[in-house]
């Protein structure tokens, strides 16, 4: 079974530029998460999708961050414009979904973003 795929693995941009991250969850997983992990901290949930609908985006800075999962499969997270404090690892995770037997979330390898 293929795992959660993320790209790119690394990205360096200047502040005020835009950047996009891509995630392809495990096949058949209805729930997709984007987490932000700042150096020295635990991951913090940015947004959660159930199929193509948003379940929780309460901690997403909506003035600069956006995410979509149009067909309920892969997802894109965008930052525009980027700030220095956005430097972090962006982790994507997926799980089968709320109506399935409870199991853990499976994580991708993340994208390390550096804003200079």
């Amino acid at each position, binding site marked *: 079974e293929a795992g959660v795929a993320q790209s790119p693995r690394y990205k360096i941009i200047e502040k005020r530029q835009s950047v996009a991250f891509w995630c392809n969850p495990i096949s058949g997983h209805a729930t997709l998460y984007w987490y932000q992990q700042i150096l020295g901290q635990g991951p913090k949930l940015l947004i959660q999708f159930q199929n193509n609908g948003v379940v929780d985006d309460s901690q997403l800075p909506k003035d600069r961050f956006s995410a979509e999962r149009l067909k309920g499969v892969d997802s894109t997270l965008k930052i525009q414009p980027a700030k220095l404090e956005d430097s972090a690892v962006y982790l994507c995770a997926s799980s089968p979904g709320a109506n399935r037997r*409870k199991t853990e979330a499976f994580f991708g390898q993340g994208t390390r973003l550096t804003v200079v």
Partner: protein
Amino acid sequence: AQTVTQSQPEMSVQEAETVTLSCTYDTSESNYYLFWYKQPPSRQMILVIRQEAYKQQNATENRFSVNFQKAAKSFSLKISDSQLGDTAMYFCAHGSNFGNEKLTFGTGTRLTIIP
């Protein structure tokens, strides 16, 4: 809202010894899940062990076991016969059993196994 606290930023132990990582949490839910995730330098979060709050029996997975104290809201991880490959960041996480199932993570413990 849930909170997870890991009070040990760093720990180190000799290879083959036993080490215990601490975690406390706060939640208003009566049923939930608790997890320990391992994050090696590759950055990928890997599930180590899972505990369902309604189960009284502590979970075990080979060399890994937990001490789940529901009343005290404590969830420690014990690693027996530690190996060099156990060197990593370890995160404790709370998972809601209702609604959105999101995970709330602690700040992590950096564990180093010394040869």
